[in-house]
């Protein structure tokens, strides 16, 4: 293993390995899958609002509150169905090196993670009904302390990645 020796000289220049984002984006269809998922949740919200609207009509309550609810629903629909999936996709990146896995995600808070390959305990691929519709799968990487997920890769990419990581991670550990 190569350990960066810190001599205190190049302090202000900072590191280089995390300056660039990871190279690979996840599958483009992830946006559609995410849109459908949030549409389902927002749909429930709409149903509740409609039920409320009917109750308001029947018992002739004030229309004020229900109007606000409709506006909130519209706003949520725009933000969660149309805005966020695209932004999320644009931010999501990953790169697998021989020695480590490099992941970037997060819309407001951008988070970049390094997972050393020799610390990986197991890798899983996972596929729900929505991901299956688009032939996508997500890859979950677990260490003894953390779990990291790369969502929505093409099925073939996901299984290739899983196999690659599991081969690379198959290094004898000195001790735990």
């Amino acid at each position, binding site marked *: 293993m190569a*350990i960066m020796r810190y001599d205190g000289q190049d302090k202000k220049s900072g590191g280089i390995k995390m300056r660039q984002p990871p190279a690979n984006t996840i599958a483009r269809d992830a946006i559609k899958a995410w849109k459908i998922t949030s549409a389902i949740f927002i749909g429930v919200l709409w149903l509740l609002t409609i039920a409320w609207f009917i109750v308001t009509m029947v018992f002739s309550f004030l229309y004020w509150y229900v109007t606000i609810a409709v506006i909130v629903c519209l706003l949520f629909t725009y933000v969660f169905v149309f805005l966020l999936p695209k932004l999320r996709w644009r931010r999501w990146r990953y790169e697998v090196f021989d020695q*480590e896995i490099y992941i970037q995600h997060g819309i407001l808070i951008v988070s970049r993670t390094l997972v050393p390959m020799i610390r990986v305990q197991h890798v899983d691929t996972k596929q729900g009904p929505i991901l299956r519709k688009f032939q996508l799968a997500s890859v979950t990487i677990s260490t003894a302390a953390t779990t990291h997920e790369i969502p929505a890769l093409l099925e073939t990419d996901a299984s290739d990645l899983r196999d690659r990581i599991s081969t690379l991670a198959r290094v004898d550990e000195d001790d735990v």
Partner: protein
Amino acid sequence: MSKPQRLHPAAIIFNFIRILREGIYAIILGFITFRGVSFMYFILALAVILILLITISILTWYRFTYRIVEDELRIEYGIFVKKKRFISKNRIQSIDLTAGVIHRIFKLVKVEIETAGSGSGAEGSLKAVTLAEGERVRSKLKKTGLEQEEMDMEVEIPPQPSFTVSFKRLFLAGSTSGSVGIILAFFFFGFSQLEQFIPESYYKNTLAWIIGSSITLIIGLGIIVLVLLWLFGIAGTMIKYGNFTITKNDNELFITRGLLEKKQSTIPLSRIQAVGIQESMIRQPLGYVTVFAEVAGGVANKGDDFSTVLFPMMKKAEVNAFLGEILPEYAVQQDEMTALPGRAQKYYVIRALLPLLLPLAAVLYFIPRFFWIPVILMILSWVIGNLRFRAGGYHIADDCLIVRYRTFNKITMIMYHKRIQAFERMQHLMHRKEDLATVKLSIIGVSGSGKHYTLKELAVADADQLADWCSYRD
């Protein structure tokens, strides 16, 4: 050796107490419900239940056998359903011997055998065996088995590094323990619950008397209560850490502690993930610290704060000498820390003040008379925010990393590159504009969970420096 053995008959008492403790609420409930007419029946039923419980306790003891066969500990138990548990010697992570008050009357110990499995509670537990038997089991199940026994004889010659906490130090530790506050909270909670049990007239009279008496008396009473609580805190620390001794054998640490309940535990050196130094707010001005370790696997002791205490109370200046003897690779200089940049300060202060804004507004609106309470709290929070900012920092020395932070207590963690499981760097919009980044380091914690250390608002250059240090790429 291969003959199945029973526990000491005193185990019946422990079984009984355990079952009784689980059923005590039902009994109390019954007591309250049947207080009236059917009280006789209740007593009768209680007697029957007690006899039943005693029978179960005896049967549990009778059916519980253990033996050591080759490299395994085999436990068989269960009254109706016979259960067998085999624990392989190679899988055993640690063996603890504990002696509670009842144990000590009979000169017994409890043997707890932990494997790497997750979940709470030890995987194998012998509730009551004689001390000699407990030590025999432990030496038989130790990883190196026979070699170890030979070693024990040789080892007598070179003195093993060993540290014992002095009575004076322990007293000081007790009197500065933060648990005073917790006990205080419990006390008030208990008091508010007590109201229900004291007859109302009596309670009212007392209250009237207290209100009627002079302010000085009330203050006097308050001081007495506080002093009592403080003494309780001292007693608690004394009981928990009395006779604390840590000894280093060749590849493990051996800790004995406890005044009433005696606890012996072994920590294999290879399982130590990081070493921490805690300076609590009260002890910091006195220059005292607590040294602890993060140990992988094992069981989270209830009541403990998940870390293993290596030494409860020592002068800050002595830490390096102590670690030099016990864990030489962790004895590193902790003085030249890379601090947080000045532009990070406002985030720390805002974070400390933010949760108080709403209470402040509420108090100002509803009870403006008491506006000084949130104001004082806000000043305290402001101070704490600044202290947190000042404490934050890191230092890299070859493949060793020192991280320092504060929530209330100032904590310095020393960890090695090979122990780090993941590294994360986080930035939000404001951070990006100001070249700041938050960094999170993960290591293995107890019971298969992770332990995470977050350093907020480092300079981006420093965060990237850390990333490079963590990275395995060439």
